């Protein structure tokens, strides 16, 4: 385990966290879409709230995937092939979702089709990403070469992974509700509906998180043994997560009528999402994919899966040049489209 490979372990998680935060509100808003947007005008508002940013948000997934491939090819190969049908479902969902934005706007006759695509395309990934993460933590059966050796698709669903899946979904929904509350017109029914979902989703997140923590600590449904030397860090991150969600919840309730309240509720909720991914990294370290108790092959770790030093060095240079640019682009786009969606925007 070298400095570079350790660095990249955390960088991959950082990219995943970037995805979870940014596409998080995006997928969450898509999941809420049929429940909060009751007419074409409200649908247009939701879509306009995501329109300028969704594509950039999704690129975080491609970046994280590419980084995992480059830095830890074995982990990329094992998870993507092992979770084959689940990945395919996510893929089809993201595909139909991606085209639904443009096609919905341009093709009024087929709007019902693209509405369904948009909703399912948001819901499935929002649920399945958590299930996948749960499997990585809980451990999967592998052969000597590190290939998944369990039952396709159904073998990935256990009480533990369902718990992580639903925790992920509730986090996505809470983030989506925070975003829409921030973007919807101030005195609109849409915003009222969204706010009514925000708090329950956050409460569910907290409850599931506590349950999951108990599972991990007692070893129920998961083989993951959190590294003891990082114990303090894990408790801090867990506490920060809870503080983030609770702060968002409290702000959202106390300051429900102002834009400032919406903004802080969104930011604190996003920070909680960030801490959740970091907590995952801290409690897995140095493992990338856990091996279940009945696994023949060993867990995939930084040591067993890392690319060569030169490769990681090149990746570091690429990231050092690329990431500042990416951040600048994000500042530009989020600044340009700050503020609530107005009538003029959807007209």
């Amino acid at each position: 385990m070298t400095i570079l490979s350790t660095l990249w372990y955390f960088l991959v998680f950082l990219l995943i966290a970037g995805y979870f935060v940014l596409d998080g509100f995006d997928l969450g808003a898509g999941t809420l879409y049929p429940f909060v947007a009751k007419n074409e005008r409200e649908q247009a508002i939701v879509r306009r709230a995501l329109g300028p940013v969704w594509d950039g948000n999704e690129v975080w997934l491609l970046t994280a995937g590419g980084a995992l491939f480059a830095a830890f090819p074995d982990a990329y190969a094992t998870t993507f092939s092992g979770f084959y049908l689940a990945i395919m479902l996510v893929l089809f969902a993201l595909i139909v979702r991606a085209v639904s934005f443009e096609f919905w706007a341009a093709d009024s006759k087929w709007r019902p089709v693209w509405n369904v695509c948009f909703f399912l395309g948001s819901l499935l990934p929002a649920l399945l990403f958590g299930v996948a993460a749960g499997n990585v933590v809980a451990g999967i059966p592998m052969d000597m070469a590190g290939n998944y050796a369990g039952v396709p698709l159904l073998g990935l669903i256990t009480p533990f992974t369902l718990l992580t899946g639903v925790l992920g979904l509730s986090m996505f929904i809470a983030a989506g509700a925070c975003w829409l509350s921030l973007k919807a017109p101030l005195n609109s029914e849409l915003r009222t509906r969204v706010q009514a979902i925000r708090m329950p989703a956050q409460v569910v997140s907290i409850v599931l998180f506590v349950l999951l923590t108990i599972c991990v600590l007692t070893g129920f449904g998961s083989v993951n043994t959190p590294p003891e030397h990082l114990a303090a860090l894990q408790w801090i991150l867990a506490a920060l997560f809870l503080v983030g969600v609770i702060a968002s919840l409290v702000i959202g309730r106390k300051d429900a009528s102002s834009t400032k309240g919406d903004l802080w509720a969104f930011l604190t909720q996003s920070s909680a999402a960030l801490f959740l991914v970091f907590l995952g990294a801290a409690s897995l370290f140095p493992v990338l994919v856990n091996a279940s108790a009945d696994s023949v092959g060993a867990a995939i770790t930084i040591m067993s899966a890392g690319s060569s030093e030169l490769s990681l060095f090149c990746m570091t240079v690429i990231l050092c040049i690329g990431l500042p640019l990416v951040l600048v682009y994000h500042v530009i786009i989020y600044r340009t489209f700050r503020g609530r969606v107005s009538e003029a925007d959807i007209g």
Partner: protein
Amino acid sequence: MDQVLLARMQFAFTAGYHFIFVPITIGIGLIMAIFVTKAYRSKLPEDDALARMWVKIFTGTFAIGVATGITMEFSFGTNWAAYSRFVGDIFGAPLAAEALFAFFLESIFLGMLLFGRNKIKPSLYVASAWLVFAGSALSALWIIIANSWMQTPAGAVLSADGSSAVITDFFAAAFNPSTLPRYAHTVFSLLVMGSFVTIAVAAWYMHKGTYADAAQKMLRIGSIVGVISVALLLVAAHSSAVEVWEEQPTKMAMMEGQYETGTVELAAIGFVDEATQETFALGIPGGTGFLAEGNFDAEYPGLNDLVASEKYADINVDEMPVNFVFQVYHIMVAMFGVICLVLILALIFGRKKLVAEGKGLAKSRFLQWLLVISPLFPFLAIQTGWLTAEVGRQPYVVYPSTTGPDGVFMLTSDGVSASVQSFEVLISLVLFFAVYLLLFVGWARVIRRFVKEGPVEPAKAETRVDAEEVE
């Protein structure tokens, strides 16, 4: 069915489909940026309407390129896990770089382009159009880097345990012998595609007798971009062919159906009988050798001698798809001829004066229809060219090129995912057919609408199309 075959079918289908929309996107990306710039400079409402229409057509197509592109990045891990393990040290970096340098650029500035008209300065709006095009051209560079490394590996060695390729020199790997020729070859063919789509839309309006001014502008821009790209394409394609001649002997031999060592004919049309190992072709004897080395007598190794060498000992000549590679390669070349011809016709009969007088393209329905369907020719050339490159490297997924490092190669059949079962690939393949069909229908509807709406100001467009729908 065999998992290797299914996985190959899935990759071929998804990549081939992706590579329908990407060429259109990148090609019309340039056209769109030109029209947006023109509108900014002239400040004329009709130029602005034209720019708007092309932004819309671009966006509708871009969406499919993005959506089907995710498939490609995932597919290495899902279907080609053993391949991913073997090449991850080298192959992953360009994919990550593509996302960081190219995808963010194009997706974020497309957001500016689509929604920012009333929010950003007009100059920034123009810059966004060019940045989107730059981003898409840059993404092509990174993916061609990755793909070219599979054709002509460089800057790597086989690991001590033989389980993977390890990078030794990033720049040698990125700019391997085939990267730049293939990048130029690809980009110029994509620009030809874009120019033909533009010409086709122009011809459609001439056929309908509407938007005469806009049609003339599109025809002009399309023809200029077309002529320049075709000229550059010829140079790039030549350097690409020379690279194949030097680096990828079995591919070269398959392209011309060369079983025995000798001079290589430059065939125009022909047929390879794989059973008898005979090639029947009409062409110039020794012509390919002349193009590659300036010598009609240049000798080239045939497949039978190549497979007798240690390097290509894994190949079974009888299983080589020689006729297939021969045919797709020659279709590509033939399409290049058709492209040149169509372009000349468009130049001659699309002259402003002629059209203004109601002659030439304004009159001839045959020519109008020829130009309307003309994007099919670059489409066919691009697809068959891609097939030549990818089927031509079989049976390898990482090809042992002439100057490639020792041991850095992999058979396609060794690259698949061990944990994925045939039925899983069959399910995903069927779903791909279904989902991609939905995408195609959705795209066709949207593009039809955009073209029908035409380059008119938005307020007028609404009423016009709504009125038509009521009819």
